[in-house]
């Protein structure tokens, strides 16, 4: 029988921990969530020598076991809970050879939990360039561990690491620091009170404000009585502990590591003199942003057209091959157009995540944070808000999750609240179709009006986000201690494998997440549009035939009249007409009303809904756009989509909070219904008023 051991990968951010994980597991990995929280849980399987199989967990990056964020809590919760099914048989601490001193702090903490620990010194290929040499044997003895020197970039040292993991029983569990030396009298009495407990573990439990949902309650409650020291005293002890750890590390490294500074070439400092410069820095950032948006539009056009075509012919093909009937209609008119509406985003989402992950992997994102902090703070945001606001142009869901590394709660909350204003990719199809309907084709200074309108909508979204942050900052009375630390990691050439895995993973979760909702909604809509209550719907054919008996209509026209009469009297038609009074001042008819309502599940449903509503009972192959252009305003006559109603609709979609998934994420991240509900009401009311004003002025 093959045995499976649990391996926990732990390390500071920016040490290449994820690269080591990817190198160990290859494609044998899956990404999920820790139950109840939105922290990503990455795990994978790795085959080791001698038939041993390792179950590897890539824990979130952390600087120490003193957790200051949800992500870091995950690490400590797992390491303190022996009963967790993932409790590691062995911990692998990944460090960066250039930051060994600081990285070893976490290593000593994990050693002190008396878990067998292997030390991985990664990015070994940089050693000679930095003039670093290591005495591995000396380090192994004094750190009481086994060391694997690896370079994931050059694919070196991974086999050695696998070998070390498979021999995990030979790894020492001796601690690095004698916990009692932090404060003799305090720890002596602690030891007397809990003779069977590991002192460092007790100390962690006492000092952490972690929700120990999974650990043994009884043990913790007993310890709670021991919180005799004040918070200030505890913090002073923690500082003392940190100093002691660094003393230990410095002593070991004094002999184990030599750095010849004359050999060191610090490219980072040289680059940063330009990249973080007061003028050049902002210029470079602007150019990079411009290039990204340009690339996203240019590169995705071809694949998007291609996908569009495929779904159109697929729908046609289904109609021809399947027997005529309700079921065929459901597939060809409900499901396929609905799915097409989501698959078409794949190219843009993938490109956006590609750029974001390259910016992050290369280390450039930290520089942007540095450059933008002061500017963003004026608006009550943090420099770190720039990452969510940029990724919000892909999707607000990962963007809201990306606010987690903002330490200040008020800044984080404001970022969460305003991020949905940025133009996410789900708004794009709505914008594109309406712009092509109502904005004339001309050019201004070589740029098309349509492209300019689109850019303007992006700017409006961003400006509204920043402006509402400013207002929220004035209104919200939340006291929170400001503190802001960000590491400026070394510049690295992004590893293709890491970037590719991120793009695939994020795109997949977007498509499947949204895909499920869209599929469900298109089926429901199709049913609601194809069936109706009462006489009017069931006898539609007779009613219309009698009504137009004298008009001598062609058969085709008659069929058209019957179909639209049926739709008006279907469940969806009745609902739509009920809400029509509310949306008529905005210039919409009831069909748009239905599309807006279904958009509250997710915006991208808009086009699919109109596609479903317009195609029910329609057999011709006209595109959605042609059908929309042909729609007639029921009251004023003339086309329904005019400049006024189009602009009003664009503005409504720019501001309204129409994404259930985002609301759900906001609820989880803020741990309260208050914020998502506030977001929903304020954004949607604002959208209604702006759309109303726009239509009334322009019509």
């Amino acid at each position, binding site marked *: 029988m093959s045995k499976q051991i649990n391996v926990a990968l732990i390390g500071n951010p920016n040490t290449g921990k994820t690269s080591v994980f990817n190198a160990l597991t290859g494609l044998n990995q899956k990404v999920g969530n820790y139950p109840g929280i939105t922290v990503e849980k990455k795990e994978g399987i790795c085959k080791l020598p001698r038939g041993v199989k390792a179950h590897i967990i890539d824990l979130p990056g952390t600087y120490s076991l003193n957790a200051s964020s949800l992500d870091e809590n995950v690490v400590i919760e797992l390491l303190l809970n022996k009963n967790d099914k993932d409790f590691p048989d062995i911990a692998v601490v990944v460090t960066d050879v250039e930051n060994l001193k600081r990285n070893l702090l976490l290593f000593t903490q994990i050693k002190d939990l008396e878990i067998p620990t292997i030390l991985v010194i990664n990015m070994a290929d940089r050693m000679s360039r930095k003039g670093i040499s290591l005495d591995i044997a000396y380090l192994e003895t004094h750190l009481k561990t086994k060391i694997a020197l690896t370079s994931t970039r050059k694919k070196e040292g991974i086999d050695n690491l696998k070998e070390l993991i498979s021999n995990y029983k030979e790894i020492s569990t001796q601690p690095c620091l004698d916990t009692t030396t932090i404060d003799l009298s305090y720890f002596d009495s602690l030891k007397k009170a809990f003779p069977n407990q590991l002192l460092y573990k007790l100390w962690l439990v006492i000092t952490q404000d972690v929700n120990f949902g999974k650990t043994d309650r009884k043990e913790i409650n007993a310890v709670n009585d021991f919180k005799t020291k004040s918070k200030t005293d505890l913090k002073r002890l923690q500082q003392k502990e940190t100093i002691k750890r660094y003393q230990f590390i410095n002593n070991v490294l004094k002999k184990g590591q030599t750095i010849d500074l004359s050999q060191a070439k610090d490219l980072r400092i040289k680059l940063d003199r330009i990249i973080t410069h007061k003028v050049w820095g902002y210029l470079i950032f602007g150019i990079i942003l411009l290039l990204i948006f340009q690339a996203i539009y240019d590169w995705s056009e071809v694949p998007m057209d291609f996908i569009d075509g495929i779904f159109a012919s697929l729908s046609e093909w289904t109609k021809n091959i399947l027997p005529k009937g309700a079921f065929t209609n459901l597939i060809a008119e409900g499901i396929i157009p609905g799915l097409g509406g989501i698959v078409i985003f794949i190219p843009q989402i993938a490109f956006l995540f590609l750029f974001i992950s390259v910016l992050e992997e290369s280390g450039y994102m930290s520089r942007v944070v540095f450059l933008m902090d002061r500017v963003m703070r004026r608006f009550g945001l943090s420099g770190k808000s720039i990452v969510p606001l940029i990724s919000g142009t892909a999707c607000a869901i990962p963007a809201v999750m990306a606010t987690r590394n903002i330490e200040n709660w008020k800044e984080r909350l404001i970022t969460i609240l305003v991020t949905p204003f940025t133009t996410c990719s789900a708004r794009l199809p709505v914008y594109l179709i309406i712009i092509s309907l109502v904005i004339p084709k001309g050019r201004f200074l070589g740029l098309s009006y349509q492209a300019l309108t689109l850019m303007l909508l992006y700017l409006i979204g961003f400006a509204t986000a920043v402006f509402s942050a400013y207002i929220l900052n004035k209104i919200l009375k939340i006291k929170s201690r400001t*503190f802001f630390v960000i590491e400026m990691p070394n510049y690295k050439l992004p590893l293709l494998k890491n970037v590719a895995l991120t793009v695939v993973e994020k795109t997949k979760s977007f498509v499947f997440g949204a895909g499920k909702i869209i599929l469900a909604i298109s089926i429901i809509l199709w049913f609601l549009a194809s069936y109706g209550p009462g006489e009017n719907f069931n006898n539609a054919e007779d009613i219309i035939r009698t009504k137009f008996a004298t008009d001598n209509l062609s058969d085709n026209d008659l069929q058209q009249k019957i179909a639209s009469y049926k739709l008006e009297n279907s469940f969806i038609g009745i609902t739509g007409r009920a809400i029509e009074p509310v949306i008529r001042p905005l210039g919409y008819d009831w069909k748009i009303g239905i599309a807006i309502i279904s958009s509250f599940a997710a915006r991208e449903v808009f086009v699919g809904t109109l596609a479903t509503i317009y195609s029910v009972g329609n057999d011709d192959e006209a595109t959605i756009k042609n059908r929309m252009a042909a729609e007639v305003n029921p009251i004023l006559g003339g086309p329904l989509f005019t400049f006024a109603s189009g602009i009003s609709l664009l503005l409504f979609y720019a501001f309204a909070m129409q994404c259930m998934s985002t609301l759900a994420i906001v609820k989880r991240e803020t741990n309260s219904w208050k914020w998502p509900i506030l977001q929903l009401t304020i954004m949607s009311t604002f959208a209604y008023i702006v759309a109303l004003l726009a239509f009334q002025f322009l019509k």
Partner: protein
Amino acid sequence: MHDTLAHLKKGERAVIMDVSSNLIPLKLLEMGCLPGNSVELVQVAPFSDPMYLNINGSHLAIRKETAIHILIEKVANE
């Protein structure tokens, strides 16, 4: 009376003398911001805030409001 880190100018070096542990997050201490360690101001954003530091080999940025709680003694550049 010592200078605080906020007084450091671009390119200058100093040694950290004391940190007010009540006002400084533990995370910053753990990243190497401890008495006795050397610090260099690498770059400043407009209005000298935030400050990009090299503390004991760690490259990190902090805000001015944090920097004023870190006491230093400047070291003459050789």
